[in-house]
């Protein structure tokens, strides 16, 4: 009996080993290039099986639309160029477990009818897109109904002048469990665009000088945005209709313009913001209809408005942030305030601290009279810095009458937080 069991074990092991080797012996490497075994990518794809690797050597490939309907690994050696000739979608991925690495994809077709992208994923999972350089495409990387995909260390550049001529850099639609890591996106319409994307992580991306938004998402719940950098995008970052978003350690910089925001929160709830930095934006954060958001340890520096909270927001906790060198720290458009401010550092605070606990003894009213006037009547900004306005602000600080009494930080910090 004992021998039999041992024998059975050995047989199973050998069988497994054989299977393993067998399978591996089936997966082959196909070379594409001028002097290689295949002259074109399409030919290599036709000859390949699931699990094969196709290595594309240096050269320019103009093969129109390439449909990948096998689980293959597409590797570029010395950045081969795949050109869409401004007519075709370059790579269409329609099968799970595909890897695209080290390619230069350029000049994808332009069409508002079917939104061609340099790489477009249709209903597929476990796709890895890594180390590619995408230049002058309509959409860069387009995912629809994709799950468990990784988009990593790609560089996307486009140079269209108008929004309608341009697609988004990384565009994801109805997807789940994505990882968007370390990409650089420049000159597209939106840098990163999510719609109905859940449980995803967006980490270490740089989106700058895009025509519209650096980051734009809607109905994309439970995502985390960590250490991203958004600079000088046409209208900053706008996020809408979403629950449970986490934003940590992102930087929003130089989004300056009439309708540009560091971040625009429209109908967002249950979110957590920490360690984010807002520099030189017209508006650092704009809250509109947003509830139960915790914002702590963020830095608002040299913005026009640090934060604008519309009166339709409630139960937001703004605590332990630094407000420095903003023209207006905070404004609101109503008299009712249902948000809580505590332990923030305000550089405009003029109170004192007798018991030396680093918390000011006098509550701080961050709302200046002029900011209330401007909120109600934006053209009044023309009077900014006039003597009369300074006088009004000073008198309001001494005897508050027009600004809402409840808009107050009861524990203003005397020294800036270490952020």
């Amino acid at each position, binding site marked *: 009996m004992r021998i039999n069991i041992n024998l059975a074990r050995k047989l199973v092991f050998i069988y497994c080993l054989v299977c393993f080797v067998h399978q591996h012996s089936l997966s082959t490497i196909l070379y594409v290039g001028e002097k290689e075994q295949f002259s074109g990518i399409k030919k290599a794809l036709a000859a390949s099986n699931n699990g094969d690797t196709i290595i594309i050597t240096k050269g320019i490939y103009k093969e129109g639309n390439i449909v990948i309907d096998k689980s293959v690994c597409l590797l570029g050696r010395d950045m081969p160029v795949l050109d869409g000739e401004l007519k075709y979608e370059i790579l269409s991925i329609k099968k799970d477990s595909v890897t695209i690495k080290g390619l230069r994809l350029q000049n994808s077709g332009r069409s508002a009818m079917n939104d061609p992208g340099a790489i477009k994923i249709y209903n597929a999972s476990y796709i890895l897109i890594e180390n590619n350089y995408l230049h002058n495409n309509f959409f860069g990387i387009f995912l629809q109904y994709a799950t468990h995909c990784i988009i990593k260390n790609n560089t996307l550049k486009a140079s269209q002048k108008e929004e309608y001529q341009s697609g988004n850099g990384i565009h994801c639609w109805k997807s789940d469990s994505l990882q968007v890591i370390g990409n650089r996106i420049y000159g597209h319409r939106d840098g990163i665009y999510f719609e109905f994307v859940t449980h995803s992580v967006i980490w270490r991306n740089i989106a700058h000088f895009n025509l519209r938004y650096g980051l734009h998402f809607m109905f994309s719940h439970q995502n985390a945005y960590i250490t991203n950098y958004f600079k000088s995008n046409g209208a900053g970052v706008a996020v809408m209709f979403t629950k449970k978003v986490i934003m940590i350690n992102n930087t929003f910089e130089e989004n300056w313009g009439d309708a540009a925001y560091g971040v625009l929160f429209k109908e967002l709830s249950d979110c957590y913001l920490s360690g984010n930095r807002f520099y030189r934006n017209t508006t650092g954060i704009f809250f509109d209809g947003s509830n139960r958001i915790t914002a702590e340890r963020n830095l608002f520096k040299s913005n026009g408005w640090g934060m604008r909270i519309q009166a339709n927001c409630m139960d937001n906790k703004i605590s332990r942030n630094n407000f420095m060198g903003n023209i207006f720290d905070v404004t609101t458009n109503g008299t009712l305030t249902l948000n809580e401010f505590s332990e923030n550092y305000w550089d405009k605070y003029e109170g004192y601290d007798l018991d030396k606990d680093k918390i000011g003894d006098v509550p701080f009213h961050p709302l200046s009279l002029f900011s209330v006037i401007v909120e109600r009547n934006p053209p009044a900004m023309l009077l900014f810095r*006039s003597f009369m306005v300074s006088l009004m602000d000073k008198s309001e600080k001494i005897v508050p009458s027009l600004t809402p009494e409840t808009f107050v930080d009861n524990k203003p910090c005397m020294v800036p937080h270490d952020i």
Partner: protein
Amino acid sequence: MRRILKYVILDIIKNKTIIAYTIMLALFSWGTFALEDNVSKSLLSLLNIILLIVPLMSVLFATIYVYNSSEFIELLVSQPVKRSKIWNALFTGLSISLIIAYLVGAGIPLLLFSDTGTALIMIAAGSLLSAIFVAVAFLSSIITRDKAKGIGISIMLWLYFSLLFDGLVLFLFFQFSDYPIEKIVVLLSALSPVDLFRILVLLQLDISDMMGYAGAVFEKFFGNQWGLLISFTLLALWIIIPFYLSLKKFKKKNL
């Protein structure tokens, strides 16, 4: 005329008030630039000070000077000199010496610390502002013979331009907030030299994006070369018109 001018300038430059004014401006400007590490912020603080002090100083000093030199003027009138020449020389002398004070006090630190474009605009507009309020002072001092009354009128005019006018504009904003009055208000603001100066500098500092629609209108109107030309022409008109009125009166005045 040149002799009178020379005499007036030499007389004023020796004046202790002007020296004190220069030193005060210099202290404020060097102080704001030294205390604040952010240039645009210190520019804004300096703007506030200049908008308040330069008009006040110009208008008060000029008014008092004109009243104090009434005997000198009478003496000159008895000589074979044209009245317009006397008045012109007096005005030019006062303006030049106040402008020199402004240039030495605020101009040098502005050129040193801020970017050249903004500094040049602030220097040009500030010099014009000095001249404007000298012209206003001439007008108010010619209206009445009584020195106290004349100084009172000057102070009232200064108060009007630096404070009441803005109040009126704000009042208009609220009264007509339901109507598209931005363009009208923009034009209206151009009617006060102090406001015009302030907005010119603000446009330099990129604040216009925060002014919403009115800012866009203003940027479109004053932001380009033509706008600059127009606003400086307007500022020049603010010198010419009050001075011309005062000159007309002075020519016919029974001293």
